[in-house]
């Protein structure tokens, strides 16, 4: 229909081109707004005398990266982040995969209330829970421990991970599993040898997504970890930024880039699968 319209009159076509130009212009303007702060990050990190403004460096230098690539500033905090978030991600993914299996495979009158509670929990403002969590952690002596913090981080991501995982698992057909059952496989065997390999991409998405969310988390480690040598990058960059009288902006930009790079790369890896349809694992479908 559009084709015939186009053939008959130039009006609609012309209007369409104009509409595209207008849309392009509006988007480019917005894009510029979004780009400016990012541009500052990139330019300041290589500018020998960086300040707070976006401007082309008079002389390009790698000295900021050199300066922050030390144990104290970069390697220890990044390793802490890796341990903390990696550990928490493993706990989240294992627990979520286990929990998703019965929820996806068996029918019971508990399923619905359980899943609704999970969805409800996904929406709760975790920030509000931090004060009582701090109090509890002091009492059970989990405060300032990596494993305690990792367990809380894992729990904070768990509801969403279960939800995603269950939706991915629902997509795996039952037939092959039933064959395994007939051959006498146990539930654990069916889960690890049949279901999980079949939903490999789904598990990867849950894993990477969980890791990205935890890597950027600031408030939880800020509250629960106290000793400087245990702090992950999210808190250490804040300490650097907040406590130095005269901040070396170039170094902060350089460190911010190093700290952000892993999640940016990971996001690109899963973008296609999360992409357009990423809406709470399909729960938001119109």
């Amino acid at each position, binding site marked *: *229909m559009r084709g015939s319209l186009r053939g008959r009159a130039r009006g609609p076509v012309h209007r369409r081109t104009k509409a595209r130009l207008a849309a*392009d212009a*509006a*988007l*480019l303007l917005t*894009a510029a707004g*979004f780009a*400016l*702060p*990012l541009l*500052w*990050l990139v330019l300041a990190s290589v500018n020998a005398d960086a300040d*707070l*403004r976006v*401007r082309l460096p008079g002389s390009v230098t790698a000295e900021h990266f050199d300066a922050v690539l030390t144990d104290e500033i970069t390697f220890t905090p990044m390793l802490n982040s890796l341990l903390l978030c990696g550990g928490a991600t493993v*706990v989240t993914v294992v*627990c979520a995969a*286990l*929990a998703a299996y*019965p*929820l996806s495979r068996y029918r019971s009158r508990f*399923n*619905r209330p359980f*899943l*609704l509670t999970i*969805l*409800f*929990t996904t*929406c*709760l*403002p*975790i*920030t*509000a*829970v931090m*004060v*009582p969590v701090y*109090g*509890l952690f002091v009492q059970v002596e989990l405060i300032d421990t990596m494993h305690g913090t990792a*367990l*809380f981080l894992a*729990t*904070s991501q768990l*509801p969403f991970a279960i939800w995603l995982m269950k939706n991915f698992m629902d997509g795996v057909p039952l037939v092959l599993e039933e064959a395994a059952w007939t051959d006498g496989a146990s539930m654990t065997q069916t889960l690890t040898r049949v279901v999980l390999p079949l939903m490999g991409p789904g598990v990867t998405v849950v894993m990477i997504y969980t890791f990205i969310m935890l890597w*950027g*988390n600031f408030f939880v480690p*800020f509250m629960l970890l106290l000793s400087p040598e245990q702090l992950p990058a999210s808190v250490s960059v804040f300490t650097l*930024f907040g406590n130095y009288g005269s901040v070396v*902006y170039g170094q902060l930009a350089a460190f*911010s880039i190093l700290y*952000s790079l892993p*999640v940016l790369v990971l996001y690109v890896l899963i*973008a296609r699968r999360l992409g*357009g349809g*990423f*809406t*709470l694992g399909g*729960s*938001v479908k*119109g």
Partner: protein
Amino acid sequence: MSRDSRDSRGARAWRWVPLTPATLLLLLFLAGPIGYCVWIAFTDTQLTGASGSHFVGLDNFRRAFADEDFRNAVWLTLVFTVVSAVLGQNTLGLALAGLMRAASRPVRTLTGALVITAWVLPEIVAAFLLYAFFRREGTLNAVLDWLHLPSQNWLFTLPILAVSFANVWRGTAFSMLIYSAALAEVPRDVTEAAEVDGAGGVRRLRYITLPMIRRSIGTTLMLNTLSTLSVFGLIWAMTRGGPGNRSQTLPVFMYDQAFLKSLIGYGTAVALLLLLVGSLFSVVYLRLLKVEV
């Protein structure tokens, strides 16, 4: 299912064992603290002097509603949520998703990539970038100078708007993604038929597109509101709630009372109110979704 008839009762109970690790974690680290929160909110617990913890009933809440700083925090949270979540992230996300359908491919890709990068960046890096952007000697004032517009010290004169803008910068990608998916599902022939009938852009939006994606709008509004209610790091790193208390939203106020002023009981009462508001929104959200699980 054929398995059901074959299995004994005991075997059927075993099936639910895999749920235990997750349930245990959720009970210990989420339900536990929330329960503890309900208890502590009714006591006068302080960080110093562990002995002094008494049940004080509704005192903390009465005190909160009489406290000018608390009311200030409620007001600022309202401003922050409406400006950044409802108007900012939601409207800008919808506008971007809509414009992208009309725009050319390279522009669409570029804009999408930038908006999503802002979203994926760690919270504290985003805070740092926007702090640099809004500072007196930062980029925003440089741009305003260049346009011959008056510049000012944004973080001092309009701190709540600066952090709201920061939240828009950081959070719009989520709305954009949901709306892009929703708009892709609006059948093209319906809008085209309206176009042929002579309905202009605004009227097509008002009478066709918006009604067709109304559930996505509800969801986006709800999720934006909930995530904005719990923003802490962004504000804390940009302004620490200041100057004075002019960007002190409820999470920042809660942190300030509980830890800097050591009033754990009072801070928890504030946290409980925040949780209640969040729960209310969550319930509305679940109703709205009419989830099939």
